[in-house]
Structures are given as structure tokens and as C-alpha cells.
């Protein structure tokens, strides 16, 4: 009985999987995992972009108010209107600028810009990756 079965099965041609199939499957799993990670990251980056974009206007208004209040622009304008005098008394001029510069609000403003540009860069990169896979 067993020999008969062996005879029957010996007539079938054995099908071998194509060469490199395992590697392709592993590669596909790796890519899917990567894609999932990128999509998750995309959510956080989008959030960062939206938050920084939303924060831009109030922080800009804050900087504008601080600059107007401190008179920083008026001192800075001397560099254009009275350049020669400013060069002669550059130390006094620099001190007057430093005394009026709204450093913390400017740092906040630049931080918002930095976060926005950084998240935009990552967003563009990740969108390209996602569309590249598709």
C-alpha cells in the first residue's frame, strides 16, 4: 500500500519556492514595519507643525509689542540714519541695543520658527517615504 502511494507521488513534479522568496518576505515585513513607524511619527510631526504654526501669530504679536514698548527699533534705526556717529560710539550704541532687546520673547519667537521649519522638513521627508512605498 505504501509503495503504491510512493509510486503515485513520484509522478508529480515537486514545486520549489522561487529563489530569494524568504528574503523578499523578510524585506517586505521590514518595510511594512518601517512604514507603520513612519506613519506614527507623521502624526506627531503633523501635530508639531500645527502647534508651531498656531503659536506663530500670538508669539509674533508678543515680540512686536515688546519691541514697540522697549524702543529697540528706534535705537536700531540709528544704525541706518546716523551710521557714522554710531560707528564712533559703537560701544554705547551696542549697550543701548542690549538694554532694550527683548531677548526672551525673541528666543521664544525663533524657537517657534525653528520647531516649524524642523517639523516641516521631517514632514516632507516622511510624506515622501510614505508615497514612495505606495
Amino acid at each position, binding site marked *: 500500500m505504501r509503495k503504491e502511494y510512493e509510486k503515485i507521488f513520484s509522478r508529480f513534479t515537486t514545486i520549489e519556492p522561487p529563489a530569494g522568496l524568504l528574503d523578499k518576505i523578510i524585506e517586505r515585513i521590514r518595510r511594512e514595519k518601517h512604514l507603520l513607524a513612519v506613519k506614527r511619527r507623521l502624526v506627531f510631526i503633523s501635530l508639531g507643525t500645527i502647534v508651531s504654526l498656531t503659536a506663530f501669530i500670538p508669539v509674533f504679536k508678543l515680540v512686536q509689542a515688546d519691541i*514697540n*514698548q*522697549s*524702543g529697540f527699533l*528706534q*535705537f536700531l*534705526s*540709528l544704525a541706518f*540714519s*546716523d551710521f557714522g*556717529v*554710531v560707528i564712533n*560710539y559703537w560701544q*554705547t*550704541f551696542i*549697550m*543701548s541695543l*542690549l*538694554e*532694550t*532687546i527683548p*531677548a*526672551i520673547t*525673541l*528666543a521664544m519667537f*525663533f*524657537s517657534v*520658527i*525653528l520647531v516649524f*521649519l*524642523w517639523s*516641516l*522638513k521631517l514632514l*516632507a*521627508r516622511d510624506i*515622501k517615504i510614505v508615497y514612495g512605498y505606495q
Partner: protein
Amino acid sequence: MDINKILQSKKFKITMGIIGGLIVLLLAFGIGAFVGLRRANFSFRWAENYHRNFGGPRNGFFGEINGRDFIDAHGVFGQIIKIDGSTLIINGRDNTEKIVVIKDKTIINGFQNNLKPADLKVNDYIVVIGDPNNTGQIEARLIRLMPAIPMMKI
């Protein structure tokens, strides 16, 4: 133009680096100024209480300046509220009055030409840069007449 290319370019990275550096610089300066202000405030309070303890006025010699920053020493922008010879009293930011002394070497510039001290009028808006003296006045190096800014909150 490919935005992605721009965002991944070296120039973009350099720009980001410059902005980052600027933030660090501003933060360091801001924190330094804050710490300096705290120390100066402490020294000021210490001196105030010292005098009060030895029979000075009840509110101290300098009155109350709670909640107000220390005033700028090297310049002022504001409106002339009084002219007394070569001395100007300026209403600066936060309604702080500052005394500006015009010296012989002080340069006074109008919109188009050089001015004399006599050309300055009460209610004129001016920007002054100068050095503080021992009596709490600013010895002006440059006075620039500015157009009145109606929206300005001094």
C-alpha cells in the same frame, strides 16, 4: 522647484543652525540679564534696608520700585517733557523720567540736518544714546529727533 530638496539641502541645515545658535545666544543673554537683575535687586533692597535700619526714611531712599525693571543706562527713547538749559527730561518707556545732559560734543540730528540744542522743543520725540554719569543722568552722545508715533505706548 522641489520643496523637499530645499528642506533637505545643506543651506537649509545651515539656516536652522543659525536660528538655533541665535536662540541659545538670546536665552543665555536673557537668563544672564535676569540673574543680574535679581542680584542688583537684592543689593538694592539690602542697601535700602541698611539705611532704614540706621534711621533713613520709612520707604527707603529710593521709594518703591516693586514690579518694575531697572532702567536702561545707555539710552532713552521718549518725549521731551521739560528743557532746562542743557538738561532734558525725557518721559521714557513705562513712564520713567530720565535726565539727559547735552554736552559740547553731543551731536543732535534732525530729519535732514544737524540741530542745535535750542532747536529741541517740549513734546518732541527723541532717541538718545549716551553714557550714564555718577549722578544718574545720561550724558548724550547722539540725539536723534524722531517723528511722533501715535500708536506708541511709552
